[in-house]
């Protein structure tokens, strides 16, 4: 495998063939904010938080789906990038009803910590306050669309790790919602195996274990990586 040498924030880094900018940056200890990326699951470049600048390229590219090429010069933290990232997070907050103070994931939420690390001290856009439902019909889990950021992590773990294919997207734009099967109440889903991977994968409090009280929902994402490593590399590393 040919190694690629490239520059990231002024630092010379070696990446392996086929490695993404995000992956290589993480290996080198350079943090790039992400939301739809989940270790062990394929990337789709949906949230755009990992946008980086590449010298000679006019547009910004998502680090999670951009492969490293030789001699690439990447900037991860310019003033422009910081501005855009903050804007993206603000827009995510306006799109649904994220009320951290009374959320089951308060204190353990990726959206919340993104907002904090990106310095979102207030939101400059109008909130849309959409009317969103809670589907509590599953025996063990619930989904609260008020808190969903449509990252699709639940969909990907459901299809590609569990292989059940229960979770999916429906609708477009602001009407877009995560559904079970063909928009059945989750509790009636014939395909759901009740494995709970989607709940662990979800970055916010949108997917939760029933009965969880405020701030109580802590997700265990290590399990997902464990399964993937075991399956793909035949290594059972806890």
């Amino acid at each position, binding site marked *: 495998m040919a190694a690629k040498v490239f520059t990231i924030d002024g630092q010379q880094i070696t990446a392996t063939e086929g490695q993404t900018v995000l992956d290589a940056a993480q290996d080198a200890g350079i943090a790039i904010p992400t939301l739809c990326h989940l270790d062990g699951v394929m990337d789709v470049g949906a949230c755009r938080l990992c946008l980086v600048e590449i010298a000679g390229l006019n547009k910004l590219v998502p680090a999670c789906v951009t492969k490293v090429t030789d001699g690439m010069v990447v900037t991860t933290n310019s003033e422009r990038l910081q501005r855009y990232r903050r804007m993206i997070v603000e827009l995510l907050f306006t799109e649904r009803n994220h009320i951290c103070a009374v959320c089951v994931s308060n204190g353990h939420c990726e959206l919340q910590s993104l907002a904090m690390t990106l310095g979102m001290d207030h939101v400059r856009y109008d909130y849309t306050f959409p009317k969103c439902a809670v589907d509590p019909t599953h025996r063990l889990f*619930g989904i609260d669309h008020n808190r969903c950021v449509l990252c699709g992590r639940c969909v990907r773990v459901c299809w590609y790790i569990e292989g059940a294919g229960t979770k999916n997207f429906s609708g477009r734009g602001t009407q877009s919602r995560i559904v079970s099967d063909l928009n059945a109440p989750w509790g009636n889903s014939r395909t759901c195996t009740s494995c709970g991977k989607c709940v662990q994968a979800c970055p916010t409090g949108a997917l939760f274990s*029933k*009965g969880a*009280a*405020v701030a109580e929902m802590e997700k265990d994402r290590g399990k997902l990586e464990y399964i993937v490593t075991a399956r793909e590399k035949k290594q059972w590393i806890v």
Partner: protein
Amino acid sequence: MPKWIKIDPVTRIEGHAKITIRLDDNGNVADAHFHVTEFRGFEKFCEGRPFSEMPGITPRVCGICPVSHLLASAKACDAILAVNIPPTAAKLRRIMNLGQIVQSHALSFFHLSAPDLLLGWDAPIDKRNVFGLMAADADLARAGIRLRQFGQTVIEVLGGRRIHPAWAVPGGVREPLTAANRDLIRAGLPEAKATTLKGIEIFRSLLAKYETETQVFGNFPSLFMGLVAPDGSWEHYGGKLRFVDGSGNVIADQIDPERYAEYIGESVEPSSYLKSPYYRPMGYPAGMYRVGPLARLNICRRIGTPLADDELVKFKALGWGAVTSSFLYHYARLIEILGSLEHIEKLLAEPDILSERLRADAGINKLQGVGASEAPRGTLFHDYEVDDNGLVKRVNMIIATGQNNLAMNRTITQIARHYIQGPDIPEPLLNRVEAGIRAYDPCLSCSTHADGRLALQVTLRAANGEILDEVGRL
């Protein structure tokens, strides 16, 4: 020509409110109303939420007594799970509620009311606050602040934070008490008790001086309601409801809070967002009842701890069967602090208090749940109805300040009648009306005005709405 006196806003009560005093054609006080314009909306926006989130949401009703909402809410959720929570969890919840009573009562007495009581109602406005008290009696002011801190520490070490602890959950509590924290609470008890006893001594020494106030600050017979233990002792977390009349006769007893709606009606008046609850069998407004410290001491036989019980005997001697003056809410508050401190001490000595069995696990076993607890200001009810999946369909909350609403109006009327003799607004009236209201320690929204700045606006209106006179100061 009827006139209106409006006092707006009342300071040093927690929240914002307006007072209107209506005069009749002869310049005599016709009646008085306390308008609350802030409490709204919570019941509506809880609808559709999973019930298990309620103990996290409802404490946001109020930043002054979040613990009370937390506990009433957790109890309503326990009822939906249909479980008995582990004994240690119940004891820890009790300790937290006692801590809440201590901190809230200490704030009410030492920060908000002591300036009036010790410096006099008519002391200059910029002196009559906790800073003025500091200048006059630094030790007392400081001790009062530390007493409140003690109560807050109790809440903090149990819940992990002082305000909005999300620690009580459906079925129990989340975290155990550690030995170190038990010892920390214990260490603060002697000083807290000493301060409380000092406060009681001071209040008792002022009783003779404030005879008029005792007579006119809401001295009238009314019903009293609160929780009592099965043997009729003081309760704050468990127990059942008891109503006594103005002479102390028990008229309804050991009523399961679940049946509150059979006994308590709620009337809504256009002048206020507060609902005015009344004792249903007697109708509205004859069924006016008071809740809170005064009521709790009137309905109970004993507090169950030595120092507080000694004091309770002296307190009860101030009335015939029941103590009917709202001015004595202050005294009752101090006695309750004492009782709470002693009860905390007893609970900390329980052998299983450090147990880590704290949470009963269950699904939705009942579609309605009522939780009642004694908030510092009086009995608090949370009543939830859920669907099969546990989503909240209906919420009703009855808060303490609402239950005292009718009595507060009555108190203002009484004070106004005493001090208003002509067409003018006499200066002492305003301070006394405020102090009369403050005796109830009403909690009306989420803001505290502990700085004691007296921002008053008094409007004198003719019946046709014409402003005859206006007195304002900031």
